[in-house]
């Protein structure tokens, strides 16, 4: 079968000049990824799950975004810090990578023939290519320049915080992380920073029996940035996977999460809060959760605040496979439109092949509740403050998905500050 020319053109444009490391175990994995990618090409607007978001925006030849030199989310949190600048590991700015119960190595240095990550790298991504293709993720597996390989064997006593900084306004970054949380182990992974003019990430997470993986990330500040992230997870029995993303500003953000629940009694939660101001803002969350085991629970909770012509997209699917009885699946996506120009495009889907399941989904778009606004103002709260209280109240249900209160509070303050900066 030959691919449409448009897909091939996009692909050659996007990978022109990218370096392709071809040695050791990585050479094999990357070679396979490149084959997958070449067979798919890059998506075009007609493809399913790309109708609301133009993939061409992720292929822009020379992305440019302002550099944010200031502090980033989770600065105050006691964590093992790993810093990348323009996608290059910064040893000076990073902490020592040793930590009890956690083994951290770098993709760029893992060049030996044997590595535990060989079982994961590109593997979860490959599984996630079906039934919907995710060519940008294959591109990430093929061309990533670095990333972290994190193996968790015990209970990590503090989070690992990955900080992406940029020093150039044309930085174009491609990182790939693998996380293996072994039986009964536990870790919290944080991500923050303005990242790059264009950031492409793939994170593959294998959560073994009874293990817990918490992921909280903040995408913020830089207005012009283009971000395209993928999280692929395989969740075993009695394991817990939780991922939260706060997304602030950005002309193009596409966050994909592909979660496979393969063991009984497991839990998978994904949630997000995003805020955007202006017709340049485009924020897309695309989630695909597969239930392939019994008595598992999944939740998707997404809230978007949109103003001055901003666009929010949510595409979320729950697939319940035959035999996945007693599945409890919940999905909600809501937008708060602060003016008539902003838009929220949602595609909630349920596909169920088991008979004894409980699944629900809901999607709404609404404006600020004028009655509540008047009530607050009648008590002396100035209009803008009242509005920001109501916006934060709207986001609260998503923020409540974060288990660790200090992390939730950090993001809540950031969102509040954003509202202050974008008043009126």
């Amino acid at each position, binding site marked *: 079968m030959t691919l449409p020319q448009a897909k091939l053109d996009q692909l050659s444009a996007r990978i022109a000049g990218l370096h392709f490391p071809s040695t050791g175990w990585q050479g094999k994995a990357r070679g396979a990824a490149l084959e997958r990618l070449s067979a798919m090409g890059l998506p075009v607007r007609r493809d399913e799950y790309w109708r609301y978001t133009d993939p061409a925006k992720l292929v822009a030849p020379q992305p440019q975004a302002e550099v944010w030199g200031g502090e980033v989310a989770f600065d105050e949190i006691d964590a093992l810090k790993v810093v990348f600048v323009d996608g290059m590991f910064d040893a000076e700015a990073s902490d020592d990578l040793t930590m009890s119960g956690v083994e951290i190595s770098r993709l760029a240095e893992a060049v030996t023939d044997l590595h535990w990550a060989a079982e994961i790298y590109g593997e979860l991504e490959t599984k996630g290519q079906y039934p919907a293709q995710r060519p940008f993720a294959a591109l990430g597996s093929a061309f990533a320049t670095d990333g972290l390989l994190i193996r968790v064997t015990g209970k990590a006593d503090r989070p690992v915080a990955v900080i992406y900084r940029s020093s150039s306004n044309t930085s174009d970054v491609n990182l790939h992380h693998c996380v293996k949380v072994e039986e009964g182990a536990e870790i919290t992974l944080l991500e923050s920073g303005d990242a790059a003019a264009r950031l492409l990430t793939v994170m593959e997470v294998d959560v073994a029996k009874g293990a817990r993986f918490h992921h909280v990330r903040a995408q913020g500040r830089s207005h012009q940035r283009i971000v395209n992230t993928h999280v692929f997870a395989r969740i075993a029995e009695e394991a817990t996977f939780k991922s939260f993303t706060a997304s602030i500003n950005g002309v193009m953000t596409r966050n994909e999460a592909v979660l496979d629940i393969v063991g009984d009694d497991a839990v998978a939660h994904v949630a997000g809060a995003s805020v955007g101001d202006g017709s340049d803002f485009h924020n897309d969350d695309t989630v695909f959760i597969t239930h392939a085991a019994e008595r598992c629970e999944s939740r998707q909770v997404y809230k978007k605040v949109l103003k001055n012509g901003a666009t929010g997209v949510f595409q979320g699917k729950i697939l319940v496979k035959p035999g996945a009885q007693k599945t409890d699946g919940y999905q909600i996506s809501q937008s708060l439109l602060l003016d008539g120009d902003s838009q929220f495009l949602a595609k909630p889907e349920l596909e169920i092949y088991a008979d004894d399941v409980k699944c629900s989904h809901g999607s709404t778009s609404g404006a600020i509740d004028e009655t509540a606004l008047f*009530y*607050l103002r009648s008590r*002396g709260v100035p*209009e803008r403050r009242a509005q920001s209280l*109501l916006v934060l*109240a709207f986001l609260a249900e998503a923020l409540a998905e974060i288990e660790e209160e200090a992390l939730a509070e950090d993001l809540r303050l950031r969102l509040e500050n954003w509202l202050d900066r974008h008043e009126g």
Partner: protein
Amino acid sequence: MLKINNLHVKLEEEEKVILRGVDLEVEAGKVHAIMGPNGSGKSTLSYVLSGRDGYEVTDGSATLEGEELLEMEPEERAAAGLFLAFQYPVEIPGVGNMTFLRTALNAQRKARGEEEISAGDFLKLVREKAASLKIDADMMKRPVNVGFSGGEKKRNEILQMALLEPKMCILDETDSGLDVDAMKLVSEGVNALRDEGRAFLVITHYQRLLDHIRPDVVHIMANGRIVKTGGPELALEVEKNGYADILSEVEA
């Protein structure tokens, strides 16, 4: 304190006239009651005074201690000392009651050039006022009015009034939906605030509330106007004979 002069109000979106020349003056230290049939415009009057959107003032004026009310934003009216206890208090999911009360109190203080209250002092103040209204700690932790019973919502209105210490208090059917005990609590809350420098405008259907909060003056409102004004005995007359007699007498 509050002076309303020939106030005419219509709906902004429709050609529907609701208030047709309201004249009313409430002096400092006094309690005035407004009674009147449903739909006569009592709530509209309270909303227009507090600055709700959706109404258009076509004529007349309203002043609070000489200041032109109708020109101000709702929050400015609040800071100037106006308070409306809502007929239907609003539920605000996601905003904690404590956060709400503290934000409101501090915003008003700030608007008046006063210092903000410290977290500790605020807690003490709220606990004390809440206790006298039998509002338990659990209610304070919940989002504003969410899951509150009708009576709890009304008590929460009075709590806000007690905290904010406004000069001009308008109570819109605060008695509706209250059982005898709650009515007593609410009335005690109101009476505790009675003061020479403070005035009340109590909108109600029933004599019952006025047994507890004794008004100095009673007005009857009908069809967008104050049609009769008298002493407390006017409320008793309404209680006994309804509005029909008064209205036919006015129309005659």
